[in-house]
């Protein structure tokens, strides 16, 4: 009621009728689009409910407490065994997805930046190797790459009995990379705390000394100090604590497999490698574009004040290109995370593949798919919130 009144009082002498008033039209358009969206939702949800009811399918989540019964190839944090519940199996899948996506994001970023910079190198060979790499991985579907890495590379490695060995520490075979690893003792926890304190302390010292150096113009060596603190404190802890905090266990060939140490399974390594190689090709292009977006004058100015090429890149060009790089980089991170669901093809028990098994063993398609979708949504939104906060900080500082 209010809207048309104020409308008529302002525009009465111009005689704009309601159906041509821009604000009214926009309002109506909003209402209609909201109705369309709601209509869609109503249609789909009622369709699922009616169909589930007609076919006697249960839409509840009660089954999640039942024992899963199926084995999973690998798990982190949770020590999974088949007597655990469907929910715990799902959690194993989630943690496996987080593991491969977080490690993948870090590695893809490093490789992407390296290749992106190499694309702009003045060295013909480096530049063209980077070109070939980017064009190859960007233009082959990830699934194909994964299958190739799994069957064409890892399954062609020597068998367990004839593993390719690096000393007694690393063994490479068809089933994965078996490595010497640490096993914990009674002092491990205390030592981890010392290590954490040392790292935090080192970071604080690094920042304070860095600021002091800039304000006073005196050389204070912040990096050396930080390095010293982060090495000396843990070393001291190592000798003071009653037991040695970490023991190294070596992988030893048992009847069928290596035991002891740790293993990066073929499935995990192939997926990680595929995701990293694929995503890094895109990140390289983003980095290249970001660097080229920095105006040429900046490069020339940096060179003019005597910075070496690497210094110019690190101190002048790269910080400025971050503004252009970060937003598309976020979407590459999300892509990598979502693409990790291709794990199902090569047998890595990620969120999606555990979900698919659950659907089959529990016979509950709709609830499990809702769980899978909601979980991916949650992971992606969390990643993008964190990265967007970082992005905001960067853009703000640059202005």
């Amino acid at each position: 009621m209010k809207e048309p009144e104020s409308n008529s009082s302002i525009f009465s002498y111009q005689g704009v009728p309601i159906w041509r008033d821009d604000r009214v039209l926009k309002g109506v358009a909003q209402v209609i689009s909201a109705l369309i969206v709601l209509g869609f939702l109503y249609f789909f949800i009622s369709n699922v409910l009616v169909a589930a009811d007609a076919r006697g399918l249960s839409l509840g989540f009660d089954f999640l407490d039942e024992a899963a019964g199926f084995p999973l190839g690998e798990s982190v944090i949770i020590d999974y065994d088949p007597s655990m519940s469907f929910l715990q199996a799902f959690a194993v899948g989630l943690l496996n997805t987080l593991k491969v996506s977080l490690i993948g994001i870090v590695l893809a970023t490093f490789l992407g930046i390296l290749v992106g910079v190499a694309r702009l190198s003045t060295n013909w060979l480096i530049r063209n190797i980077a070109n070939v790499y980017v064009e190859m991985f960007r233009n082959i579907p990830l699934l194909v790459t994964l299958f190739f890495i799994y069957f064409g590379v890892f399954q062609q490695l020597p068998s367990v009995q004839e593993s390719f060995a690096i000393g007694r520490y690393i063994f490479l075979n068809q089933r994965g990379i078996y490595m010497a690893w640490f096993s914990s003792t009674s002092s491990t926890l205390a030592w981890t705390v010392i290590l954490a304190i040392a790292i935090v302390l080192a970071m604080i010292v690094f920042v304070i000394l860095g600021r002091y150096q800039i304000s006073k113009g005196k050389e204070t060596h912040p990096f050396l100090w930080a390095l010293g603190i982060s090495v000396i404190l843990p070393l001291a802890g190592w000798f003071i604590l009653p037991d040695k905090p970490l023991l190294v266990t070596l992988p030893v060939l048992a009847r069928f497999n290596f035991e002891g140490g740790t293993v990066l399974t073929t499935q995990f390594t192939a997926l990680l490698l595929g995701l990293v190689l694929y995503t890094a090709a895109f990140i390289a292009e983003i980095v290249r574009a970001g660097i080229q977006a920095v105006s040429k004058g900046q490069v020339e100015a940096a060179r003019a004040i005597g910075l070496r090429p690497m210094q110019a890149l690190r101190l002048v060009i790269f910080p400025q290109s971050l503004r252009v790089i970060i937003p598309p980089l976020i979407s590459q991170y999300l892509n990598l995370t979502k693409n990790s669901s291709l794990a199902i093809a090569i047998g890595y028990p990620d969120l999606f593949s555990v979900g698919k098994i659950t659907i089959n063993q529990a016979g509950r398609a709709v609830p499990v798919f809702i769980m899978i979708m909601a979980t991916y949504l949650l992971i992606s939104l969390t990643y993008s919130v964190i990265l967007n906060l970082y992005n905001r900080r960067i853009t703000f500082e640059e202005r």
Partner: protein
Amino acid sequence: MKKSSLVIFTMLIVALILAACSSEPEQVEVTVEVTRIVEVPAEAEAAPMPAGEILQAVRDRGRLVCGARTDLAGFGYLAEDGTNAGFDIDFCRAVAAAVLGDSDAVEFVPLTAAERGPALQTGEIDVLSRNVTWTSSRDAQWGNFTNVMFYDGQGFMVPVALGISTLEELDGATVCVTSGTTTELNLSDAFRQRGMEFTPVVFEDTGTVYGTYESGGCDATTSDKSQLAAIRSGFANPDDHMILDITISEEPLTPATPSGDDQWFDIVKMVTYALINAEALGVNSGNVAEMVNSDDIAIRRLLGTEGEFGQADLGLDADFVVDVLTAVGNYGEIYDRYMGPDGVSFTLPRAQNNLWNNGGLIYAPPMK
């Protein structure tokens, strides 16, 4: 202004269509109630043999939709000329011959182990014939299981070089298995029960499972023994692999139909009875034409020459068994075609899959 009002107009139309769609389920419910109250006697009079929804849908469509597989020698695979073939495939052809009179009127939907349950639950397929193990929970959740067509058991395949003969010797082994199967559950049960350790390598695609096993990525692989025999026959060096003489589970492989259509369920069951009884009575694809005039009353009844065993009640032709036998033959013929002594896929002794009167477990109710 003109543009935006055009957009709004289009949106309005879309909204109206949607509103009509979304209110559909309610309308359906209303009509159903009305028909229930008013039209039941009329319906009974008009159609003495009410066709169930699925039978009607199959006949209207002119073809049967069969959930199958295309990647397992002997059971469901693609023949050299590109047509579907196999023990499970021939069963679908038999059903198509029974209800449509044409064993080629089948649309095969290739399904992975993980896809088959939902496909049956949603009614996307009319028959699931894709070496499915009949279990009580699947019976409760997926649909209706008809009649066991193949008695199988889960076994293990290992490289001969390992020199293994018992399950206990597999302690600590890496085992390749297909996900979403009873096999996967039996495997972990069998090892847990014996307090043994194993590393599972689980794939959804059977091709990847056996590919990984063959290249040495696993010490052993496990599945139904018939499937292992089929896979072994396709290896580059079959003699390097052996199937252990261990059976850790019972796997009654059984075709299934969607829930909620008794008539269709009965029809598919009746096809299984017909195939088995035909073998017991000695009627096969070669002699069915003469047998129509046999003196044996049981044979005459089976082939629809005389008497009746419920075909008409289910909406089938009196002589549908003749169509079935002409097209695919009896149970034994189907078995032998793929797995018999001269089978195209491999040779697997009938053993428990012999007829009951030959020392096996294959049995069907009498056709009377």
